[in-house]
């Protein structure tokens, strides 16, 4: 054996050990990634983006007022953002004026012509009117917002008043309103929130056919009568828990005061009332005129039949299908519908948040 062989073997072994260790020691020495992992920074409010834009633009308010008074268009920059302040009416979105602009700030109403594509964020101190077939990156308005037929918003949209979505219009990302959102047939959404969300046949609400006659009775009972106080409380301590291996059916017209868990499908019959919450590992079907006063949690698809009522939340690991006249949540008790996809018929009344992770549609 050669005299240097053991030395060579030792050296090679040392090198092989050091190959993976060296980057580790380097990282320990240089501390390139030694800060704590970031955790959630915001409070999950849907209007966060809109609030941030409003706050950023606040220093320009005086300039905006001046532009409004003098009916002029002013290009300025703020913290690296190129901003166009529009005080003039009938702004024509001249490409030379809007080139390189990241935010359009309207001192009053913003009228976006049909077919116009706006790749900047829009702030309007008044209403926003998006023309037919127009497309917008994101917008916040201090009044009502109307989206014309087949128009599109790509990131987020927030209005302090009401938002109207004409047939075929789409809002990807976040859609929120201070008062109400009214969606007509063929509209698409992903994540929306408002105290009142109405799906309508046309731009009036007369077509709403939700059954309000019996659905809130348990809640009213609980508010008016202290003895029934726990009836309207999802977390009532006294409510029994019913676990069923397989399918569960609540027969038509029956009333059950229990939290039900079914490892199969769950079916609430026509006109039946479940005063507690319902969970199914597979699909959940709520037949017409039935109501669930607690939450609905489903491993599959939830079908809410015509004129049904769910106090909510409604959480489905697949889709939520809502038939005409159904109602989810109440004006003074908003709730959440959460699913992969959602299909909502015209004539429904929802209160709170609707999350369709992939795509939500209003029946065409």
């Amino acid at each position, binding site marked *: 054996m050669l005299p240097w062989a053991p030395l060579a073997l030792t050296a090679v072994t040392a090198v092989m050990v050091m190959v993976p260790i060296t980057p580790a020691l380097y*990282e320990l020495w240089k501390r390139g990634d030694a800060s704590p992992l970031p*955790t959630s920074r915001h*409070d999950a409010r*849907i209007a966060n983006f809109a609030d941030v834009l409003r706050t950023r633009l606040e220093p320009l308010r005086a300039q905006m007022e001046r532009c409004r008074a003098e009916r002029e268009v002013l290009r300025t920059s703020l913290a690296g953002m190129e901003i166009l302040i529009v005080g003039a009416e009938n702004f024509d979105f001249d490409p030379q004026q809007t080139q390189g602009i990241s935010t359009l700030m309207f001192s009053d109403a913003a009228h976006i012509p049909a077919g116009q594509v706006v790749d900047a964020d829009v702030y309007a101190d008044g209403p926003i009117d998006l023309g037919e077939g127009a497309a917008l990156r994101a917008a916040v308005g201090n009044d009502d917002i109307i989206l014309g037929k087949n128009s599109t918003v790509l990131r987020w949209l927030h209005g302090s008043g009401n938002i109207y979505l004409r047939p075929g219009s789409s809002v990807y990302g976040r859609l929120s309103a201070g008062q109400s959102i009214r969606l007509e047939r063929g509209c698409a959404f992903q994540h929306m929130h408002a105290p009142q969300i109405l799906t309508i046949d046309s731009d009036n609400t007369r077509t709403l056919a939700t059954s309000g006659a019996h659905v809130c009775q348990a809640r009213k009972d609980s508010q008016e009568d202290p003895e029934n106080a726990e009836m309207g409380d999802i*977390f009532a301590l006294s409510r029994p*828990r019913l676990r069923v291996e397989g399918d569960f059916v609540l027969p038509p017209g029956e009333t059950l005061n229990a939290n039900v868990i079914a490892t199969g499908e769950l079916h609430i019959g026509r006109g039946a009332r479940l005063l507690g919450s*319902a969970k199914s590992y597979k699909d959940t079907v709520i037949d017409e005129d039935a109501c669930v006063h607690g939450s609905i949690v489903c491993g599959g698809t939830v079908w809410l039949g015509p004129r049904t009522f769910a106090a909510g939340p409604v*959480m489905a690991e697949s889709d939520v299908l809502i038939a005409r006249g159904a109602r989810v949540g109440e004006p003074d008790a908003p*709730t959440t519908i*959460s699913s992969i996809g959602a299909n909502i018929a015209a004539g429904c009344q929802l209160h709170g948040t609707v999350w369709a992770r992939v795509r939500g549609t209003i029946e065409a």
Partner: protein
Amino acid sequence: MLLFRAILLLICIYTFRHYYFTFNRLFAKQRHPYVDLESAAWPEITVLIAAHNEEAVVADIMKALLEADYPKDRMSIIPVNDRSTDRTREIIDAFAEQHPSIEPFHRVGGKPGKAAALKDAMTLVKTEVVLIFDADYIPGKALLRQLVAPFFDPEIGAVMGRVVPLNVGKKCLTRLLDLERSGGYQVDQQARMNLHLVPQYGGTVAGVRKSALEAIGGWNENALAEDTDLTYRLLIAGWKTAYENRAECYEEVPERWPVRVRQITRWAKGHNQAMVSYIARTARCPGLGWFERIDGLLLLGVYLMGPVLLLGWVLAVVLFYTGAQIGGGLTVLALGAFTTLGNFAAFFEIAAAARLDGSRQRIRLLPLTLFGFIVSLISVSQAARQQAHESLFGNLFGNHELVWDKTERSRTAPVLDDALSPTAPALRESV
């Protein structure tokens, strides 16, 4: 030889489990069924803060909870001061004077231990949903709602959030523990959630449904690990534990190796105690699916795998030098598979977790986690040996009384100013 084969089989099963969880996290559909819950009739909740001599940290968690984005009229905070001998009581009382939502519970006697303290504090709890934090945790603004959301599911008895180390940059040990925690939560816990298996209730950054707790007899004050104990009692009684990966909360991890050794020894003893208590009941529990049952059993045995692995190594050396035939092709295949894949299963899991967390540089520390692994292996083996000894000779030497064997804190003063949010950059710089 039979023992050696049994050990090989066990190691292969756990190796497969590591890989299955990791691949599930990397490539399969992820389940976050409660994460979208924004609007709801949020229930009244009680937040319990377990505190025993926590003068350095208890102010931070109370400040953070008071800033939480949860309806103030629906939340009460009960700091559970268990026989503290430092300024913990004084600090809690000062907060309580300023904030009516804080209702202190000062415990001056009774059985030692967190479970016993929580059990006594439950007499003050009037709400169905109870959240539990250790005093050294710093919850973010949205955390309470994230932890409460799963309770809208009537099957959920307990909820567990994700623990994120805050003092990562302090020492080599804290950086290794940061990686280890990532693997445990980002991969193990979330994969169990995805696969409808048995996510573990961890005792802090957690919640429990009061009616479920009462149905299973309340906190078990004789449990060394009340969290594992609760997980299995709920499971056997037909309740589920939900894991919320996005309900993240900062914690302080041990900065010294002896502290880490004591911590993992305590966990191992508690877990092994739960294994002895619940393994048979889990195996024959009628309401469990087969995969859930198997996962429950494997989770119970996880701290036993340390001594089993050591025993396997010793047996392998003995069998090699005695020239014993280790078996046919299957055994050789299993050995080969283990040496090529099994050795790296846990490390693969950590690497996947670091990738999922979006961190790029810290993955370089992966080879050093071997040292942490060896320390843990020895500690849990030592714990198992002590427990075996105590169970054999316990009557001879008498049973040990439970103590508050809490992890030593490295923070010496509050890090949150009144104006600071829990996630403010200044906080990070301060650690």
